Every structure is written in C-alpha cells, then in structure tokens.
C-alpha cells in the first residue's frame, strides 16, 4: 500500500491521522523523559571537570537543538505553503511556533543556570547566546505578526515570508562556536565521534527523542485545533462538533 501524501495533505483526513498519532507521541514523550532523566540523574557519572552542574545538559542541549530545528521545520512548511498554496502547511507553521519559542526559552534559561556555576555569570554576550536570543525574538516577532493580522490568508503568507527571512539566523547559531572564539563550548557530538561518556550520550539522546516526541505531540494538538477553527463551515467539522 502506497502512502499517499496528497491524501493526508487535506485537513479533513489529517485531522483523523493527527488524532490517532497524538497519544503515541504524548506517551512516548512522557516515558522517554522519565528514562532520560533517570539516566541523567542516577546512572550518568559525575563530570570530572564540571562536577554535578553539567547535568543540566540533559535538558539544555535537547531544548537548544529543538529550538533551532523547529524553526527550520517552520521555514520548510512556510516555503511549501508559499510555493504550493497548501492550507495545512501554514497551519503546521503556526502550530509549531509556540513550541519552538518555548524550547528556545528553556535553552536560554537552563543555559543561565549552568553558566552561573561554570562561568560565574548568568549571562554573557557571547555569539551563541546572542544568536539564540535573536532566535527567540524572531519567534516572538512572527507570532506577534500572526496575532496582529485578522485576515487569515494574509497572516499565513506574511508570517511565512518573515519566517523565511529569519532562517539565516539558524546556521549562524549552529556555527557560531566555530566561527567565533566563544565562551560557549564547542559541540561535543560530531559525526566523527563524541568526546562524551557513553552513558551521558545515551541520556542526552533519550532526552532529545523525548523533546522530539513532545514537540510533535504539542504541534499536532495545536494543528487539530487550528483545523477545527478554520474548517468550521464544513460538514465534517459540524458532524464532529455535534457528536
């Protein structure tokens, strides 16, 4: 059986699919978080340089990854939406933005908690910190633009354009630790191997998957609400709402 992408590009069919997927991702996120936090707090050894405070990476690194990655996904859906005028793409972009902003904020907040014992400062104007802060501003700006435009189609397209303009910031964040000599440490995980202990790496990857699952579940819940709101004039939505 071929998976028909166009079939699920219709809001009516995607609504059902999202409803079936949400419990899996939500439960997956919960269970993976428990496993990841258990590994992070009870199994992973104390770092020989950073002591116990390094354990914040189990939340900080996945959150920072998701903050950047969700922006890229938003830019992807925005480009698809502008190119093919598909309704669902814009709804996906709108559904993802609050989660992306949340993860970016968590990354900044946990980074501050880690920075105080390590660097002796809650905040430094380092290239990576600054560019992540700008990412948060971009999320806020895009959501403010959506909120200010009452006309749905105009809001969709304007937000998509702004998302695409801001996408240049993501590679700047990602490579900032290489391009500039920053206080923020470089990547510990590279394609050529990792400088981390295996159990630490396992904990972080489990937490990364938990963040993925949470982001997918949250976005799907939001996109279902958006679909209901936008398709409220259709028969199938009326049938759902009446039952």
């Amino acid at each position, binding site marked *: 059986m071929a998976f028909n992408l166009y079939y699920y590009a219709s809001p009516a069919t995607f609504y059902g699919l999202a409803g079936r997927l949400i419990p899996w991702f939500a439960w997956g996120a919960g269970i993976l978080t428990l496993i990841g936090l258990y590994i992070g707090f009870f199994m992973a050894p104390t770092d020989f340089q950073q002591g116990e405070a390094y354990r914040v990476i189990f939340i900080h690194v996945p959150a920072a990854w998701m903050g950047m990655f969700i922006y890229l996904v938003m830019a992807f859906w925005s480009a698809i939406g502008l190119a093919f005028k598909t309704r669902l793409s814009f709804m996906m972009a709108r559904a993802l933005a609050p989660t992306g902003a949340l993860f970016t904020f968590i990354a900044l907040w946990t980074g501050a908690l880690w920075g105080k014992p390590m660097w002796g400062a809650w905040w430094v104007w380092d290239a990576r910190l*600054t560019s992540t802060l700008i990412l948060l501003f971009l999320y806020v*700006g895009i959501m*403010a633009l959506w909120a*200010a435009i009452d006309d749905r189609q105009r809001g969709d*397209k304007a937000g998509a354009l702004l998302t695409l303009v801001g996408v240049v910031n993501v590679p700047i964040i990602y490579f900032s630790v290489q391009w500039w000599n920053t206080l923020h440490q470089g990547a510990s995980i590279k394609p050529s191997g990792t400088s981390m202990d295996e159990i630490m790496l396992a904990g972080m990857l489990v937490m990364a998957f938990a963040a993925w699952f949470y982001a997918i579940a949250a976005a799907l819940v939001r996109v279902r609400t958006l679909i209901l709101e936008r398709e409220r004039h259709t028969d199938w939505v009326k049938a759902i709402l009446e039952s």
Partner: protein
Amino acid sequence: MLRFLLTVIRRDLLLAARRRGDWLTSQFFFVMVVSMFPLGIGSEPAVLRMIGPGVVWVAALLASLLSLSRLFADDHRDGSLEQMLLSPEPTVLLTLGKAVAHWLIYGIPLLVIAPVLGIQFALPAEAILVLVASLAIGTPILSLLGSVGAALTLGLRGGGVLLTLLILPLYVPALIFGAGAVDAALAGTGAEAHLSLLAAFLVMSLLVSPWVAAAALRVSIE
C-alpha cells in the same frame, strides 16, 4: 525599467521636500535620543567614548524605524500604491526605489549629523571617520530590510511597534559590525574587517530584500 525606478525615487523625494516637517522630525529624533545618553549616564569622556559608537548606531536604528512605518502607508491610504502595483512594471523596482528613496531622505542626513554627535561623545577624528563610513554602508541596509517590515505590517493596527518587533532582530548584524568597526578603530586594530562584513551584509540585503518586500506588498494589498 530604469525610468520607472527613477520615477519612483524622484516622486518620493518630491513628496518629502513638500513635507519638510515629517522629514525633520526623524532627524531631531536621532539627535535627541543620542543626547539623552550623556545626560543619563554622566559626562565622563572615557565612558562616553566607550558607549558613543553603540549609542549613535542604536539611535540610527530607531530613527530609521520611525520613518519606515510610513514608507508605504501614505501611498496605501490615498490609493496610489494600488495603482503602482497595477502598473506593468515589476513590483521589485517599486520596493527597491522606495528603499533607495528612504535612504536618500532619511539615511544621508544621519551621515551628516553623526560627526557632530561623535564630537559630543569625545570620539577622536579617526573614529568619527570610521563612524561615518560604517553608517554610510550600514544605513542602506536599514532602509532595505526595513522595507520588508513596512510591507508586512502595512495597514495593521499598532503597525509601528510591530514593525520594531519584526525588524530589530534582523538589524542586529548591521549594529554589531557597524558599532564594532568604530570600536575596533578606537582600539587601534583597524576597522576594515568589520566594514567588509558590513558591506557583505549590504550586498546580501540588496539581493534579497526588494524581492521579499515585493512579495510582502502583494500579500498585504490582496
């Protein structure tokens, strides 16, 4: 095509010349914002020299945002913008012309005022020269990127504040390299690296912004 571009620019210059009050407001805003800082922080020359480049640059960003909210709004209100969009000429030329005109009207005066403000902040002559050079390269970026924001927020309630939210994050590289160039000149390490990066950013905005602004304008007018 070139004639259309020149017509757009000449029209905006003419409109600005007929309405000098609007034009002066933006310039005085720039001067006043900059002058507030020594009053608030204190008049220690060493401190002023340290904050001067950044203050002048931030004030330039704010002054450009102030005038950008009207970039398309006046033409939108009297309907001439729709007529221009209906013309067979490409919309890109319209947005490019508008941005160029905005720079000529609001950017160039900043270059003329900046040396005076530099003296107020006890900057040495070389640093003032670099400040003017960095503003000369940087203010077109502000007009170009700002035209995108002005097109996106056209006709929205609270458009001015929204424009600030949208565009300030995009201005950050210009601010960092522009003020950084003057700081580097003050530190004696040479400003060429910063100015080159700023020029690269200008080329990039010139290549991208008119098209995005044109697309945004079409979205906003539909």
